[in-house]
C-alpha cells in the first residue's frame, strides 16, 4: 500500500514538474555531486524565467513593445554512474516563450540536447577536509530546426557547442565551496535570410558566433538529505558586438550576464530514491541580455541497476 502510494506520488511529482512549476539551475554538470557506480538518476525540471528590463549594449532599458519576456522550459535529465568517479549525463528541453505586450508571437518547441562526461580524477582527504577536482567535457546541439534569428523570443541560440569545464570542490564536514570555469566553443549559425548587418554588411546566411566562457562559484550545506547552496554565475561572450540604439538583438551580440541564486535538493527520508530540487536566481549585471529572474522546481528518481 505504501509502495503504491509512493509510486503515485512519484507520478504526480513528474506531472507537476512537467506542467506546473519550476526548473533547473541545479544542472549537475556544474556541481560536485557524483552518482555512484551503476546508479541511475533521472528527472524533470521546470524553469520559469522572465524580464522586463534589458541591456541594449550597456544601456539598461525597458521596451513597451515587448513588455515582459517570459521563457519557460521543461528539461529531462538522465545521469548515470559508470564508476564512482566517472558519470555520464544528458539533458533535453522543451521551451516556450512569450511577450506580454506588442504584437510579436512567442515560439515553442524542442530545444537542445546536451551530453556531458564528468570525471573526478582527484580526491584528497585531510581529516575533515576533502578536496576534489573534476573535469567535464560536453557537447550540445539543437534537436529541432527551431528559429534562431528571432531574439528575444527564439527558444534557443541554435549553436552546436563543445564545452570543457574544470571544477574544484572543497568540503569541510557538511560545508562546501565549489568553483568552476568552462569554455564554450560555439559553431556558426545559419539564418533563414541571405544577409545581415552586425557592424558591417554580410552577404551570407552564415553567422560567425563568438565563443563564450562560463564561471560559477557556489557554497553551502551538503547534508545527507538536504543540499542547499548559494550561487554566483557569470556568462561572458568572448567577442560579439553591442546592440545599437533601439536596434534588434542579434545572435552574435556580446551577451554577458552575472547572476546570484540559490539551489536546493532534498532527498525524501521515507523514499531515498526520490529527491526534489528547486532554486531561484536574479540577474545583477548584463550586456545585450534581459535582466532575468528565474526559478525552477523538479523531481528526480534514482536507483541502482546492479548492487
Amino acid at each position: 500500500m505504501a509502495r503504491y502510494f509512493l509510486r503515485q506520488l512519484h507520478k504526480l511529482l513528474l506531472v507537476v514538474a512537467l506542467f506546473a512549476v519550476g526548473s533547473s539551475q541545479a544542472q549537475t554538470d556544474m556541481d560536485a555531486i557524483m552518482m555512484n557506480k551503476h546508479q541511475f538518476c533521472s528527472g524533470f525540471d521546470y524553469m520559469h524565467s522572465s524580464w522586463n528590463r534589458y541591456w541594449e549594449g550597456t544601456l539598461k532599458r525597458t521596451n513597451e513593445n515587448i513588455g515582459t519576456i517570459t521563457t519557460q522550459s521543461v528539461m529531462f535529465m538522465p545521469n548515470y554512474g559508470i564508476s564512482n568517479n566517472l558519470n555520464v549525463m544528458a539533458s533535453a528541453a522543451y521551451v516556450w516563450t512569450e511577450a506580454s505586450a506588442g504584437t510579436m508571437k512567442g515560439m515553442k518547441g524542442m530545444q537542445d540536447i546536451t551530453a556531458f562526461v564528468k570525471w573526478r580524477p582527484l580526491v584528497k582527504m585531510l581529516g575533515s577536509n576533502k578536496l576534489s577536482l573534476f573535469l567535464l567535457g560536453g557537447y550540445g546541439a539543437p534537436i529541432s530546426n527551431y528559429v534562431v534569428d528571432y531574439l528575444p523570443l527564439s527558444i534557443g541560440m541554435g549553436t552546436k557547442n563543445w564545452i570543457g569545464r574544470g571544477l574544484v570542490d572543497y568540503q569541510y564536514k557538511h560545508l562546501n565551496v565549489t568553483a568552476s570555469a568552462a569554455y564554450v566553443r560555439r559553431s556558426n549559425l545559419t539564418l533563414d535570410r541571405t544577409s545581415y548587418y552586425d557592424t558591417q554588411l554580410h552577404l551570407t546566411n552564415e553567422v560567425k558566433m563568438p565563443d563564450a566562457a562560463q564561471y560559477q562559484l557556489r557554497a553551502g550545506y551538503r547534508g545527507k538529505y538536504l543540499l542547499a547552496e548559494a550561487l554566483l554565475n557569470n556568462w561572458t561572450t568572448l567577442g560579439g558586438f553591442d546592440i545599437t540604439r533601439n536596434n534588434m538583438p542579434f545572435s552574435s551580440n556580446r551577451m554577458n550576464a552575472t547572476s546570484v541564486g540559490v539551489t536546493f535538493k532534498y532527498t525524501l527520508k521515507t523514499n531515498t530514491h526520490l529527491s526534489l530540487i528547486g532554486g531561484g536566481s536574479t540577474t545583477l549585471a548584463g550586456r545585450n541580455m534581459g535582466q532575468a529572474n528565474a526559478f525552477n522546481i523538479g523531481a528526480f528518481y534514482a536507483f541502482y541497476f546492479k548492487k
Partner: protein
Amino acid sequence: MKKFFSTILLISTVVVLVLSCSKGITERTADAPALHPSNADTEAGTWKAVLLAAPTDVAVPAPIATNTPDYIAQIAEIKTWQANLTADEKAMVKYWSAGAVLRWNEILRELVAKHNVPPYQNADGTYPVPNAANPLAYPTFPFSNPPYAARAYGYVSAAQYDALVSAWYYKKMYSRPAPYKVDATLNVLVPKSDLPSYPSEDAVVEGVSVEMLKLLFPGDQDYIQQKAEEHRRARLLAGANVRSDLEAGEALGRAVAQKFVARARGDRAGGAVGTPAIWSQMETDCVAKGETPWLSLEFPKRPPMLPVFGKVKAFLFDSLTCISLRPGPPPATGSEKMKKELDEVAQLLKAPSREQTRVVHFWADGVGTYTPPGHWDAIAADDFITKNWSEVRWARNMALLNMALMDAAIVCWDSKFTYFNPRPSQLNPAIKTITGVPNFPSYISGHSTFSGAAAAVLGHLIPERAADYQAMAQEASVSRMYGGIHYRSDCEVGLVVGKNVGNYAVLRARTDGAE
C-alpha cells in the same frame, strides 16, 4: 598517475582539435570574378540618359597624348606601385575588379542596413526626426526605411548610369588606349580590354557614388572616402588606369552627380515626413469615408513612416501617371470580404509551419536590413555577375531596376496614405505576428509592390530567369500574409501595381538604345 597524464593528454588533443575547427565564412560575392565583358558596348555613348540631355552636358577635356613625358611618368607611377604589392593590395585589386557598379551597390546596401533603425522616443512620448544638417547627433541621419532606401537606390543607380553613358561617349571620342596597350611591359592584374580607358569608368562610378552618398548618408563620409581611395588605388595597382584616366573619370562622375543632387533637393522627398496636421487629416478623411482608420501599434504611438512619400517625383512617369497607377480601394473595413481576409490571416498565424516561418524571415527585410529594394538588388547582382556585362550595361540594368523600385515605393505609399487602411493586428488584436508590424497603413503591401516591379524588370533583362523572378515575387508577397501583417488583397493588388510600375522600366529599356 601515468594513466592520469595520458588521459589529460587525450583531452588536450580533443580540445585542440575542436578549437581548430574553422569558423571561416565565404560571403557570396567575395570571390566574384573580375569583370570581363563579352561585349564592350562601345556605342553606349548614344544610349538615352535619365537626366542628361546630351552626353556632353558635362565637358571632359581632351587627354594628354600617350607619348608625352607626363603620360610616361604616369605609367612609371604604376610600375613603382606594382614593385612591392602587399597581400592586402592584391586583395583590394581583386575586390574592385569584380565591378564598380557591383561594389558601390553593395556599399550602398551596407549603409542602408546600418541606418535602417527607427529612432527611440523622446521622454514625452513624441519621436525625434533625424536631421540631415546634423547627421551624427541622435537620432542619426538618415533613418533609411524602405521608401528612403528605395529612393537612395534609385538616385545612385540612375546617376551612375548617366555618368557612364557620358564616359562612354568620351571614351569613343578621345579613344585613348589603356596603359597596357601603350606599354606592353606593364604588369596587368585584371582582364585586358580594347575599351579606351580615358576617362576611367571605375573612377566615374566612384566619383558619382561619393557625391550621391554625401547627400544620402552625410554622416558616413569617412567610410565612403576610404572606399573611394581604395577603389582608385586598386585601379592604379592593377595597371588598368593611369592617374589622368582616374582624375578625368572622377571629375565627370562628380559633375553628373550634381545634376541628380539638384533633382533630389527638389523632388518633394524633403516633405515626406509630413506634419501633425497632415497625419490627423489623413485619419479624419478616412473616418469621413466611414472606414476604420489606421493606428500605430507601437508604444508610444509613432507617427506613420513618411506619409507624404507618395508625392515624390518619380523617375519613370509624371505625377498624373502616378495617380493613375493607384489601385482601387481595399475591401471596406466593415465588409464581409474584409472579415474573411482578416480570418484568413488569423488562421495562418495560429500555428505557422517552420517553412512558412522561413519564408517570412527570408523576405522580412525589416529593421537593420537593406530593405526589400536592397534584397532585390542583391538578387539582381548575384545574377548580373554571371552575365559578363560591361560596366555601363551593369549600370543601365541596375538603374532600370532601381528606378522601378523607387517609383514602386512612391505609388505604393500613395495608396497606403490615400486609403489609410489598418493592419490585421489592429482589427483583431489576437493576431500575433512572426515579423515586426510596419508602422504605416496596410493597403497595398510594399513587399508585393516592390517585388512585382522587380520581377517585371529583371524578367525583361534576363528572360531565361523570368519565371524564377515571378516565383520569388509571389513568395515575397505571400510572406507578408504568413507573417500576419497583411491581408490577401494587400498582397495580390500590390503585385499587380508593382508589375504595372515595372512595365514602365521595361518600356524604357526597349527604347533607350541598349537593346
